[in-house]
Structure formats: structure tokens, C-alpha cells
């Protein structure tokens, strides 16, 4: 049943080889406004699941439904890969603008004042206004993470897929950036799926916590008792 507010996996198997699925026959439904954290050991298939949801990998079997379709539409998915995927030789502004353009203009009309406003706002929100024209390669690891977050905020996607996006940030910046993203998800009723190794942080941020183990995705938080309570 197509649901245009949820992200659904039906009997989904993900991986790179047909006989070597990393996660096999998993099913889930992520609803609008939910923040979902996934943790688990390295190489277990968390990133592969995110890539499948992002439409970068085809499922080995089963189906994915992103807001009622088999793939996200233009600008609907904001993806922050583990290595961020920023353009190292371009400025902070250019990188964030790419997010804004994905979400707010047609492919053939790249100039838009709305995009400019969204870009500046997003850069301000992560505290990098003074680095507007600085190339990414000249920023620290933590600043680069903030740019990646700003790119997603400027895009205003309905689904955010983030792969350890809070690594390398100092405590103060981490809290500020985390709050920005959480606020955005709550306000816009978006869905956020994040891979997070830090268990404590994952429970602090997420509404639902899954762990990937033995080719399965097991929901461990909220515990059933808590839900019942």
C-alpha cells in the first residue's frame, strides 16, 4: 500500500553480491517526523542500507518505498555520506548552494534568489558565515562536517540520511549542530535515518534505535515495555 509520508522496506535484502547479503529480508516503516538511529559493528551493512535508501544501490531483493515511490524524487533526499561528499576545491557557498539548488530549482534554471537566501541562512545556522568563500580543503574536519549539514539544511529534504555526521565535532558545536538538525526534522515533519556508533548519543537523539546484527535489523529502542507504558 503506497504511503506518501513514510519510508518503507518490504522484505529487503541489501549488499553488493547476491549470495552475500549484508542485511537480509528486513522490513521496516519509518514515519514522518521520526528520527531513526542505526548502530552495529563495522561492515555489518549500515552504510549499505543508507545507500540503498538513497537510491545509490539497488536492493538485492525486496522493495523500498520512499514516500510512495520506488525512488526519492529530486531534492527529497538529503544524504550526508561518511566522507561527506563535499567538493574540496569549491567554496563553502558553492557546496551549500548545491543542496539549495537540488531542493528548490529546476535542473535548467540554476539561478534563484530563494536558493541564495536558503544558502546564506543554512551557512549562518552552522556558524560558518565568516568562511563563506573559503575552499573546503582549507577547513578543519569539524568545519567540513558543518558544511555538509548546512548543505542538507539548505536543501530542506523530506528524508535525511546521515552516516556518522557528528563525528569529529567538539562538544559545543556538536550540540548546536545536532539541535539545528533535530529542530529542522521536527518543524518540517521530515524523517531522519542516521548511522551512529555512539550508543548514548543515538538514544539521546533518536525516537527509534535499531541495531544491525546477524544480517537483521533489530529495533531495540523504544523498548516494548516503554512503548506499552
Amino acid at each position, binding site marked *: 500500500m503506497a504511503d506518501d509520508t513514510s519510508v518503507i522496506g518490504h522484505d529487503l535484502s541489501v549488499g553488493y553480491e547476491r549470495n552475500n547479503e549484508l542485511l537480509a529480508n528486513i522490513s521496516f516503516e519509518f514515519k514522518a517526523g521520526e528520527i531513526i538511529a542505526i548502530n552495529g559493528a563495522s561492515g555489518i551493512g549500515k552504510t549499505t542500507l543508507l*545507500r540503498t535508501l*538513497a*537510491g*545509490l544501490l539497488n536492493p538485492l531483493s525486496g522493495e523500498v518505498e520512499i514516500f510512495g515511490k520506488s525512488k*526519492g*524524487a*529530486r*531534492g*527529497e*533526499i*538529503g*544524504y*550526508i*555520506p*561518511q*566522507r*561527506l*561528499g*563535499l*567538493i*574540496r*576545491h*569549491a567554496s563553502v557557498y*558553492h557546496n551549500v548552494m*548545491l*543542496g539549495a*539548488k*537540488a*531542493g528548490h530549482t529546476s*535542473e*535548467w534554471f*540554476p539561478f534563484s534568489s530563494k536558493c541564495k537566501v536558503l544558502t546564506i541562512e543554512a551557512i549562518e545556522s552552522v556558524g560558518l558565515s565568516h568562511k563563506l568563500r573559503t575552499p573546503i*580543503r582549507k577547513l578543519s574536519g569539524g568545519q567540513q562536517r558543518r558544511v555538509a549539514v548546512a*548543505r542538507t539544511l539548505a*536543501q530542506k*529534504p523530506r528524508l535525511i*540520511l546521515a552516516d556518522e555526521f557528528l563525528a569529529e565535532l567538539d562538544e559545543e558545536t556538536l550540540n548546536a549542530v545536532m539541535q539545528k538538525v533535530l529542530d529542522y526534522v521536527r518543524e518540517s515533519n521530515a524523517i531522519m535515518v542516521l548511522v551512529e556508533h555512539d550508543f548514548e548519543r543515538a538514544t539521546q537523539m533518536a525516537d527509534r534505535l535499531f541495531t544491525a546484527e546477524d544480517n537483521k535489523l533489530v529495533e531495540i529502542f523504544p523498548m516494548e515495555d516503554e512503548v506499552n507504558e
Partner: protein
Amino acid sequence: MNDYREDHELEEKPTPLLDIWYQWRWPAVFVALGVLAIFVTHSTIEGNWQKLFDSPRNVQTFFRESLWPPDWSVLEPQAYPVCEEPDFLQFTCSTAWIGVIETLKIAFVATIFGMLISYPIALLAAENLSPPSVSYPARAFLAAFRSLPSILWAILFVIMVGLGPMAGIMAMTLYTVGYLGKLQYEAIEGVAKPQLDASRAMGHGWFERSFGVILPESANNLISQAIFMFEYNFRHGTVIGIVGAGGIGYYINLYLEFLQYDKVFAYVIVIFIVVLILDLVSKIVRSMFKDDKQPNMPPWWTGLFLPAGLTKKLLKKKD
């Protein structure tokens, strides 16, 4: 757990023969290739090694009798048209100067046109941007331009548009498209995956991905390649001039026909000096686009006269 360890211990147990193979496999491969090359040479020259041993003597005779000393009259102004430049600029009316400038112009224009034409084709040819049904034909297209050497293109265009720099520009441009296109699509394919992943996931189209993501990300490489291509085109500009496509090659061909090798030698020295200067300029320009500039680099001019290793040693001593 024990079973696992036992299995791996068995696998990793070295045998003396295997040990020797792992230690010496690369030197052995190089020696084998060297021996193979010698055998192939032997069969190609039909065992006539004497020619090789005679060659230094021949070169010595040719150099002494025909090349040395170079005839520097090529740097003097031509008899006609009369040179109206002041004395210290008289050399600008010489055939060497006129030829070099024309070759530089041909190389410059061909590099710019070639780059502009090759980039869109390279985007189509890159496997990380286009499906195989598009990338393979685009690669074949570039390979077709590259498979004819620039001198053959020059002959073709001399027939089409007549003698002169126009034929040179057209020949060079086509060759640049083939050659630079290949370098460009390799640079594009070298763009890291996360950048493309993020762009694909966001939903960028081909146009945005090509010009918004790939172009800035590979810009350093593209600029570096274009500068290299300019240098390359200048060196080849001297060759295509020989078939009448303009530039300094035209004069070289002229004097070769009259067997005036001392003048040809003077031109070759001029070309060598220009290539050295171009190499230096391109080194400086490329260093502007490098990511990580190394501190304590030896001054730029030392590269002209001394090997880099030696200058570093000298600098260390000075410190």
C-alpha cells in the same frame, strides 16, 4: 576459534621456494622483460648489432661536420620585408622569432579550442557519469581523433585549406580533442565517489552534476592537463610545420631541404630554450592550483640548472 587458527596457520606456512618467489618476483619480472626485449630487438634487426656500435662514431662525424657550430644568422632580421624595429628589437624580425611566435600562437589557440570541445565529450565518455551505451561511443570518438598523429592531420588540412597556420590550428585542435579528452575523462573518473553519491542522492541532473560537482572538483587536474597540452602542442607545432602547417617547422624544413644543418641546429636550440621556459612557466602556474604547497621548496629558478635533489641538499647545508 581453534579451527580457524589452525586453518590459517596451514595457509600461511611458508615454503622455501614460495619465500624466494615472494622476495624476488618483481626483480625477476623486470629481468625477464629486459631479456625478452633484447631477443625481440635481435630478431627485428636480424642480428646486425654492428650498426648500434657504429652509431656513436656516425653521430660524432655528423655533429662535427654538419651541426657545429650552429648558424645564428637565423636570429638576424630577414632581408625582406625590411625590419623597422629599433636595434635592440631587431631579433623580432628574424625567422626564428617569427616561427616561434607563430608556433606558440597555433599551440595556444589549438589548446583552448581543443579543451572547450573535448570537455563535453569527456563528460560523456566518463564511466561514472554516463551509461556504457554513451561512454563507449564517446571513447571511440576520442580515440579516432587520437589515432591519427598530428602530422597526418596537418597533411590532411594542408590539402583542405592550403599551406599556413590555419591548417596547423585545425590539425592541432583535432589532435588536442583526442588526447586531452582522454586525460580529462580519466580525471573525471578519478573524482571521489562520495561527492557523486551525495549529488545523485540529492537528485541533481546530469548537467548540474557535470558542471556543479565534477568541474570544480577536477578543475586542478583539468588546468594542469591543459597547460601540459599547451607545452605538448608547442613541441609538436615544430613537427607539423614541416608539412607546411605554419610555425617554426616551416623554416626547419626549408633548411633541411638545402642540407643547412647548422641553421637547423640553431632552430633546435631556440626550440629547446622555449620549451625550458614553457616548462618553468607551467610549473609555476600549476603550483598555484596545487592543494598542499610544500614549505621550504628551493627557489623556482634552481630547477632550470640543478636536479631537485641536489638543490635540496645544498639548501639544507646552508641552513
